[in-house]
């Protein structure tokens, strides 16, 4: 299987997880620190893969892997702070658009990547598609309801942009570092060690008294909703599968191209929403106008063209 097909499957799974995440964020875990903490902690479940290839990478590579894991947590934290200060759709648009750009720059800088003209065209179309989709998230995509959940203050625009850029910076470093880790190490081993890094950084959240209290209180609340906790860990399992496939695609292919494909995840979300609106119109109150529909179609076409150029 090629890296492209693996990446497509990965983003399909991650789109499903995205829908579930929205449900979790609203119903079970009310705090971003708690969510970051749980994502970081639960990421360590990949240790179950240890018998299938975990190796001691040596101290140098261990530190490198752990550092890459830290970048992920840093990206996640910056993202949630950005979401807290600003409007979710804007934050996601910025992050969705900037991560591939930073990743391309870093991959040229640190990995010596070179792209063909077809790949550059693919990147262009994928980015356009991603940005269009992200802008539409304002009111028409399930997880944009997040915005009602955070404070949305227009006068914090600059801070939001800085935080979103910071988040993108960390995520891009994470991805390029991840690729670098996969170049010289067996996939499973590097994948696990990086998650150990994220796990350790999630533990750091417990150091601050305020965040510790927030996390413990949130966890206490969630205890009374056992079913939801199961859903949380269920989606985390699915998320881990998606993330693993996404990482495997990175290991096999170009990290810049895999991250550029993130728009595909939003495209799948759009399709889910459309299907959901048709099947369950009462639950998903989507207001599909011709204008919105045309935007969605344009975005999906752009992503489709991007995919076409990638597969050439």
């Amino acid at each position, binding site marked *: 299987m090629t*890296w492209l097909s693996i990446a497509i499957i990965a983003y399909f799974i991650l789109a499903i997880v995205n829908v579930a995440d929205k449900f979790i964020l609203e119903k079970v875990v009310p705090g971003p620190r708690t969510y970051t903490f749980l994502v970081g902690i639960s990421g360590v479940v990949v240790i179950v893969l240890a018998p299938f290839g975990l*190796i001691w*990478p*040596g101290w*140098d*590579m261990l530190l*490198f892997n752990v550092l890459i894991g830290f970048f992920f947590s840093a990206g996640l934290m910056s993202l949630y702070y950005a979401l807290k200060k600003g409007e979710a759709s804007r934050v996601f648009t910025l992050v969705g658009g900037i991560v591939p750009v930073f990743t391309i720059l870093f991959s040229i800088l*640190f*990995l*010596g990547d070179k792209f063909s003209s077809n790949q550059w065209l693919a990147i262009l179309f994928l980015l356009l598609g991603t940005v269009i989709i992200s802008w539409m998230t304002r009111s028409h995509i399930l997880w944009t309801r997040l915005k009602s959940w955070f404070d949305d203050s227009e006068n914090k625009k600059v801070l939001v942009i800085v935080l979103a850029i910071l988040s993108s910076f960390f995520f891009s470093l994470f991805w390029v*570092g991840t690729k*670098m*880790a*996969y*170049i*010289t*190490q*067996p*996939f499973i*081993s590097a994948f696990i060690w990086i998650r150990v890094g994220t796990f350790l950084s999630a533990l750091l959240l417990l150091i601050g008294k305020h965040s510790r209290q927030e996390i413990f209180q949130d966890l206490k609340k969630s205890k009374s909703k056992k079913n939801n906790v199961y859903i949380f860990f269920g989606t985390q399992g699915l998320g881990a599968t998606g993330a693993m496939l996404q990482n495997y695609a990175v*290991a*096999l*292919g170009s990290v810049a191209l895999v991250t550029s494909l993130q728009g595909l995840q939003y495209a799948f979300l759009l399709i889910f929403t459309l299907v959901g609106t048709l099947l369950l119109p009462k639950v998903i109150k989507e207001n599909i106008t011709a204008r919105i529909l045309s935007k969605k179609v344009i975005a999906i076409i752009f992503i489709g063209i991007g995919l076409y150029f990638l597969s050439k």
Partner: protein
Amino acid sequence: MTITKVKINLYKSIKKPVVLDLHDINIIIGQNNSGKSNILDAIEFALTDSKTESHIYYAKADIELDFRFTDNEQLKYEFPTSEAVFNLKKGTRELTFDKKTIPYNRTLASILSSSFKRLNERAFLDTNQIENDFHSLFNYPENLAKFRESLQHHFPKVSATENALDINYEHEGLYEGERRVTIDRIGSGFRRIFTTLLYIFHPQYSMVLIDEPEIHLHPAMVKKLLWAMQNSQAGQIFFTTHSPLFITPVTLIQLIRVVKNEEGTQVFGLGKNNINHQRLIQELNADNLEMFFTDKVILVEGVSDRILLRGLIDRFYKGHRDLKVIETHGKGNMLIFVKLLRVFNIPFAVILDWDAIKTNHLRDLVYNLNIKLPPMTEQEFMQELKKFDIYIFPNGDLEANYPRKYQQREDSKTLSALKAARSITEHDFNSKPMFNLREIINNL
């Protein structure tokens, strides 16, 4: 009586302890002067009282043999248990059971020295001894029947009576069909087979140590002899050989590869290694098993790579090593070959297409070779791997690495490689498009 394990140190070329887990059949291979025969010599030396035999005395020799005795032997010699360790250290021999040690007295010396037969050139010529042993085989009808059956399997027309070794025409002896023949007229191969089979099936000798049993034998005979050895179920066999015919996927577990370096003689075998034996049986064949008799193995992905590499090595390789090019049928199969080569300490190089860098097979390979590298780019990684004899074509596959004029559109990749292997000129070999292949060949 069988030896289950042997430890040898400070004997002839063995300067560091050599430990071998032994089987019913033990096939010892290695270059000339590597110390193959020294392993047989060491066992013989330990089991024979050196004062009465014409051995050079190795005062420092430290040899340990783990024995397993049959129920009959245990009863006959009144041994307390079926397992014991025989030690030769500082010239002192003793047999140690769990709770009892038997000193090397005349009885023990007699038991041990008569338990094995060393079949070297001298023994093959000792017709009196062979004749005596042949006569005594008639005391064991079951073994005699097996011997005759096996001899007939090798030489269908020849039958042997009790006086088979008698060269007097007037006595009843050997028959080729209806015709009376004598052993001295029948060819050295027959004599060799006759003697080898005699001792393999002779119950008095529970261990047979043979030096190069393939000498004078046609390859088909070697295969039959191997079959006879594998199915004799009579005793333990040790032999040294230079014949690849004895190496099959099945006998791989019995293989001991002997190597001599600055540290003296060292041995390598599958032992308890976790190589998937079933996979080896699937992958190994008469051609690639030659890897055990070469100086260096070059592992390539496919048939085109093998053909072109072989041709280029034959024509342009300036080194003195004997090189064997083996195709692994894909990069996913490289690891099983690499594991096998590592276990037997056979030097090797790996050549992969560029897309290997995009697979986990390469990382598994790198991990298996215990190569630990810091974070780096793919280009640096490929460069670094050359130090470990892993070459990745940085510009694609084999076809991207020799001039297009040798690759006709109507030809398959294999046919192009075949033609190019014969017709690439020295000028083209030294040209820029062949830089990668030239670099590999020059580094071999």
